[in-house]
């Protein structure tokens, strides 16, 4: 397997919690204990009520593609060897929004509002990235975002 040379996430005290959970195939988000707001990206305080009492919750991992694009050219330099790839904004059932890649999907099948579910891609020994595939599809081995 060739060396992974795409950018890795910045690991902070907070994002470490998120990525450690990804290694165990759990997708975390935050929920405000005061007002109940679902929060993502993880934050220091609730953007709704400014409470600092935020709890990690485990997502069921299902959502719908709000929008997507297929990059064929002029990608960030480290992605030049990975073309084409699918970038998407996904609205999760729990009420938060996440950016990721759609994998294991025929490009012609992609559409807004299509249901997707999380799959975990261990890109390095330290980092596992949450990605998404269409619900009811088998994950094919070959195509990785």
């Amino acid at each position, binding site marked *: 397997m060739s060396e992974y040379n*795409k*950018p*890795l*996430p*910045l*690991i*902070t005290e*907070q*994002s470490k919690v*998120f990525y450690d959970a990804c290694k165990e195939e759990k997708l975390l988000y935050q929920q405000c204990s005061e007002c109940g707001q679902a929060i*993502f*990206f*993880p934050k220091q305080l609730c953007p709704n009520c400014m409470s600092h009492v935020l709890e990690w919750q485990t997502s069921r991992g299902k959502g719908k593609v*709000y*929008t*997507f*694009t*297929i*990059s*064929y*050219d*002029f*990608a*960030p*330099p480290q*992605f030049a060897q*990975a073309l084409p*790839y699918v*970038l998407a*904004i996904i*609205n999760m059932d729990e009420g938060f*929004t*996440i*950016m*990721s*890649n759609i994998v294991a999907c025929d490009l012609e099948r992609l*559409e*807004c*509002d299509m249901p997707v579910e999380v799959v975990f891609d261990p*890109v390095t020994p330290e*980092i596992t*990235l949450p990605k998404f595939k269409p619900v009811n599809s088998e994950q094919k081995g070959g195509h990785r*975002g």
Partner: protein
Amino acid sequence: MDSIRGKAAIVGIGEVPTGHYPERPFIKAAVDVCEMAIKDSGLAKEDIDTVIPIGVVSNALDGANMVCCWIVEEMGMGKTAKSNFQIMSGGSSSANSLKTAAALVTSGLSKAVLVVHCDRMGTGLDLQAALATFSVVSVNQEYEVPYGFSQLALSGLLQQRYMHDTGTTERQIASVVASLRKWAALNPNAMLQKPKTVEDILDSKIICHPVRKKMMNILADGAAAYIVTTAERAKAVTDTPAYILGLGSRCTNFTVTGQPQDFFKAWNPAAREAYEMAGITPKDIDVAEIYDAFPSFLLQSMDYLELCKPGEAGKLFEDGVTSPGGELPVTTNGGMMAQGHTGAGGGIAILVEAARQVMGKAGDRQVPNANIVVETAVGGVGMDFHVGVLGREV
């Protein structure tokens, strides 16, 4: 609150050609546009007591030097200038500098404000560096960077959902670019002056589905400047002031993932705020100078500015309403897709074009009776939205 409606005006503008000018030094272009704007304004340079350089993207040192009174020294304003400070909010720097300048002159803190932008996005930044820059700015480092987002991908994400929600066709999207190219053909400062047909645009290859190569903006070197003073002083020095009638704005998010759904809905209240201050309705608008960057920015802006029925902006472009000779001319300098994208200057060029139309100085592309002109600006990945209304009369 006492509105600033009609109390300040743009009195002078300057601009050099936008494009690839490797032999044109940064400071030459910057000084040229300041000189043009001062001569255009009817003010003496001693009347200008505040200089606002806009942030520079392609070269950090040029930007730092502009912060450190480079223009004050080059223009010989060292005995009369009182303040020199940078404003930078990316594409919306035009609106934030206009707002600041208007506040400074109407409060009496300044007599006149010179805003200057210069950047070398065409020749001062290589393509790989530009792609790298635009994949990390306005991007969350913990949760977005790993997935290959960029400003170009942004155009794909926005256009995809816009087409899904409104039924706008690819032909209509291509018509946006064709309209801008027609305007650019009349603009001696535009980089791309050769018209393109809808077919030419649809024949170009897909870059970030559904966005094609000729639907992308083009990075360029450029510079522009404008001068704001009080309405009272404007009347004394020029016959062609562009009065500031209304300003409205909203800031919404840092990242594209952090956008309130639906994308850019918060833009509408910004437009309403500007119209209310100006005392106009969308029907009163003679020219719309809309910040473009990508076709979808333009289309969404038209919808949220209520210049058409929601979702029908594409039809206006397809039917030629926005083109030269059309009923509602849109982005008459050709915008960033045809005049060129100069970094934070794309918005400055649009604001300067709005003032130019109001002043009646737009040459071959002058719209007759451009009495009320609306102009917009957007920064980051669509992080904010600003609407300004300029007019010939108060």
